[in-house]
């Protein structure tokens, strides 16, 4: 990791003038490369199962501890445009594959290192980018040839790859998350036909308290809020019929200012009694439909429910959950098979959803409502995340999201590949061999590309406290002898057949990481001027 010759003097908090005033004098490319590599270096230490965490203190003094590349970069508030591109890169990988966000940045950083050396030798950027594209195509071929097809019915393999993804996180000691992720994905798709997963069908709910071991998969719904207690209504209902309303159970208001003028005392009673009458009528209608659990959408214009309506509903033995977010409506409807009702007149029995049990459950951090035993499971699931403190809980949620994404990648592209640096070193060797079939400068650049990929096993070894050079050379040796699945086993601190150790990842994660990293590098290469538009 030698610093480029023309790098600017290192500063901790550079002022903006660093990249807009003097830009003409300096080589724009070098500046971009230095900035982007700094970012890659910054997150390098969090790569792999033995990677460390970063603590980021945001401007408003909130603390974030994470190991996830995309999360770290998103929260860094990077300023240099090239550095921002790297953050975008991590995000792109997050969207495409959901995992390998650190790897993609590390690879990009290493490729940029190779670029700056090549440019130092006077090679034109456009030739480098052409050669890199060639190398990329070859690399993808190698990756595909290494991969092993997997069937979605093979639950064991799926759990293995989810475990690999979780290994690098703080939650790695808990084995249950991997199988939760697999079960969650498998229950919302049809394994025989699915080609993609809508992760919106899997809802993650966070609740403080307990430990991560208490995280559970619920075939049904979990609400963060409690059932309404104001009027002492029921909190546990069996054979629930669930209605979802989007209108308000309170006295109506007109849009214009209005006044009711009472001129006779006998009419006062009438005015006062009108409200209970109106609300009672609505509650009666709800009860008539057979509904015994009522979900009320949040309303900002009026009170969605008031004391009076809660009182009536409690008397009618209807459990009320209020403040349902608008965004959740679709998910709820999909899950319990109900239809949202926007007007009391259309509140009929056919719009109700069903569930065996709606129950309020106590946790150490307040209560939650669980709806279980829904008639046609398989459309949506909810995962209730638990954790002993907020930082761990947030990280558990992010990790679970990564694991879900890994499984989704496998649904998209049903191939597995070995982990532990094995694919990178194999690609590196094959591409080097390929470079020998080429001639001229291209051959030289392709070779540099191949070498740059060794950064992954190198960093893995370094982060695990092993000797990187001896590990990487041994790995090269093994691969040269044809053991294409040899990788770094960080737990044993040695090189073993990584497939047998159950360290596997989806092919999509590796291919997308390589593609995205190469494309970003090529794009950075093609920039030769920065002009600031005011």
């Amino acid at each position: 990791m030698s610093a480029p010759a023309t790098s600017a003097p290192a500063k901790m908090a550079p002022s903006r003038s660093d990249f807009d005033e003097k830009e003409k004098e300096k080589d724009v490319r070098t500046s971009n490369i230095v900035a982007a590599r700094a970012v890659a270096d910054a997150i390098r230490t969090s790569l792999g199962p033995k990677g460390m965490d970063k603590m980021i203190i945001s401007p408003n003094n909130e603390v974030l501890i994470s190991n996830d590349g995309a999360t770290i970069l998103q929260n860094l508030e990077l300023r240099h445009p090239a550095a921002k591109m790297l953050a975008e890169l991590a995000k792109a990988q997050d969207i495409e594959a959901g995992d390998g966000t650190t790897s993609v940045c590390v690879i990009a950083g290493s490729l940029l290192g190779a670029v700056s050396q090549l440019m130092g030798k006077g090679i034109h950027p456009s030739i480098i980018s052409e050669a890199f594209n060639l190398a990329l195509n070859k690399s993808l071929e190698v990756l595909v040839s290494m991969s092993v097809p997997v069937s979605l019915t093979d639950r064991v393999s799926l759990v293995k790859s989810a475990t690999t993804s979780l290994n690098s996180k703080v939650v790695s000691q808990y084995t249950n998350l991997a199988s939760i992720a697999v079960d969650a994905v498998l229950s919302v798709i049809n394994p025989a036909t699915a080609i993609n997963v809508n992760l919106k069908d899997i809802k993650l709910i966070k609740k403080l308290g307990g430990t991560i071991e208490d995280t559970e998969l619920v075939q049904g719904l979990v609400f963060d809020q409690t059932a309404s207690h104001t009027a002492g209504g029921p909190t546990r209902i069996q054979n629930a019929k669930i209605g979802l309303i989007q209108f308000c159970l309170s006295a109506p208001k007109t849009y214009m200012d209005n006044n009711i003028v009472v001129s006779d005392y006998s009419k006062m009673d009438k005015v006062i009694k009108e409200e209970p009458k109106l609300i009672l009528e609505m509650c009666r209608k709800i009860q008539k439909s057979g509904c015994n659990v009522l979900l009320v959408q949040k309303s900002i214009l009026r009170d969605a429910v008031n004391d009076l309506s809660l009182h009536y509903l409690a008397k009618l033995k209807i459990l009320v959950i209020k403040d349902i977010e608008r965004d959740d409506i679709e998910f709820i409807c999909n899950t319990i098979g109900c239809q949202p009702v926007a007007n009391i007149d259309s509140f009929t029995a056919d719009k109700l959803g069903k569930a065996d049990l709606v129950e309020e459950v106590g946790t150490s951090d307040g209560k939650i409502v669980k709806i279980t035993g829904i008639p046609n499971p398989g459309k949506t699931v909810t995962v209730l995340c638990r954790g002993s403190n907020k930082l761990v809980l947030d990280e558990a949620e992010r990790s679970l999201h990564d694991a879900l994404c890994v499984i989704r990648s496998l649904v998209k592209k049903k191939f597995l590949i070995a982990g532990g640096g094995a694919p990178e070193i194999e690609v590196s060797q094959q591409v080097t061999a390929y470079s020998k079939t080429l001639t001229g400068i291209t051959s030289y650049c392709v070779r540099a590309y191949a070498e740059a990929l060794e950064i992954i096993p190198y960093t893995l070894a370094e982060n695990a406290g092993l000797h990187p050079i001896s590990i990487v050379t041994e790995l090269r040796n093994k691969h040269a002898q044809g053991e294409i699945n040899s990788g770094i086993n960080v737990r044993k601190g040695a090189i073993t057949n990584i497939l047998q150790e159950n360290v596997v990842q989806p092919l999509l994660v590796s291919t997308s990481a390589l593609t995205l990293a190469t494309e970003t590098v090529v794009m950075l290469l093609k920039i030769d001027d920065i002009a600031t538009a005011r």
Partner: protein
Amino acid sequence: MSNKVLMIDGDRISGNEVRAQNVLAVTAIANIVKTSFGPIGLDKMLIDNIGSIVVTNDGATILQKIDIEHPAAKILVQLSELQDQEVGDGTTTVVILAAELLKRANELVARKVHPTVIISGFRLACTEAIKYINETLAVKVETLPKDFIINIAKTSMSSKTINDDSDFFSKIVIEAISRVKTIDYKGDVKYPINAINILKAHGKSAKESILVEGYALNCTVASEGMPKRIQGAKIAFLDFNLAKTKMKLGQKVVVTNVNDLEAIRDRENDIVKERISLIIKSGANVVLTTKGIDDLCLKYFVEAGCMAVRRCKKEDLKRIAKACGGTVLITLANLEGEESFDTTALGVADEVVQERLADDELIIVKNSNKKLASIILRGANELMLDEMERSIHDSLCIVKRTLESGTVVPGGGAVESALSIYLDNIAATMGSRKQLAISEFAESLLVVPKQLAVNAALDASDLVSKLKAYHHAAQTDPSKKSYAYSGLDLFNNKVRNNLEAGVLEPAIAKIKCIKFATESAITILRIDDKITLNPREQQGGDHEGHGH
């Protein structure tokens, strides 16, 4: 690594530097609470920026009150809060233990052991320790003499200001908690601590604190004309105003005739009068409401010989209603669209009485066989009363945990020393670098007996080595198994069997303490990079257009 051109608006420190800094901050925190640890620990006086004073011995309270900025130290504060929530006691222990673990881990890092190795060592040690507590050290409560539960309460009080009267207070605590025992629909026995109301009354000595078999409310009857004592009370619980009816917004009364004015006034009064007569007719002779009752309405109650109490706390009302079999009503409306008062909403109590206590008057809902209890604390000054309240709360929590979980362990450093010896033996069987981490973990646990001895002004090295010798014997020589319960006797400067001496803690408290401390230590240990972003500047025209 740390000096790269990472273009962000903030500071970044990484590697050993950040670890050292975190450990330093954490150690500083532990040093603050260290001296208040154990039966002979001392108290802290905390004065905040507006001058209000808190005197306490409780780790969680101390850490909450002091304003801590360092993020790693904040994790430790959260840790003590968590222990407070989950267990209720041992908040100081958990902080000291976590800090010691980190300190030793940092030394290992300085000796070139990679943090990840230390982390996996700590994890292993933690799992083994918990297994050992569950399998070997924990004692089922059924095997203990009956007064064990008093000893549990006494142990938790031993470090607090009420230690001198712990016999007295532990009896109150046990009695209070046995009164609120409930069994839920699943058949689980629960002890809802919230059902025990703790009231503080200035004056008299601590020993004159009393347990009331009922629920004490810090309110008085609404009018002097009302009876102060009602036996065979039927209580109505209201959550609405009893006052002259007001029209809602947007409703106007226009009077065209002078005579009408009088009629409208009457009607306003009549509406509420009708409500009150509904309540009185139902047979209620005590009315508790969370809202107000205006003078006019009071008259009706006085005439009917009812006791009415206004401005009660809603939480209190719910508790009483639950225990007396009543319902809190938010409106009188019934399903016919009319108003009525359902007699089933009435709660029943033996007696509702207003009593004078110190300078205050209290309403006490007495109910000999219902699940209510109140503890009225007396004390010479406010600060002491506050601290007494916290101590009683800790005790209640501990007793509850013990009764619910059913296993106890000896206190006085017994568990920590036993674990230390046990883990040291495990470490010796390990061939890898984890050995170092595990033996450091074992060594860290000894901070508990050491600190106990130091706070008692005893020779820590001497006592702890003696203690270790006992535990070593217990684990190697089958005939000396009972030595496994050896702990410190800080008053007589010797080692004794703490199980027999009655120094007990619930096993669950110890297990959670070790678990939480390890988890927090690992969380902090995993951090190798700290990035502090500068606060965002005010958006000035000068900064527009940059960074695109």
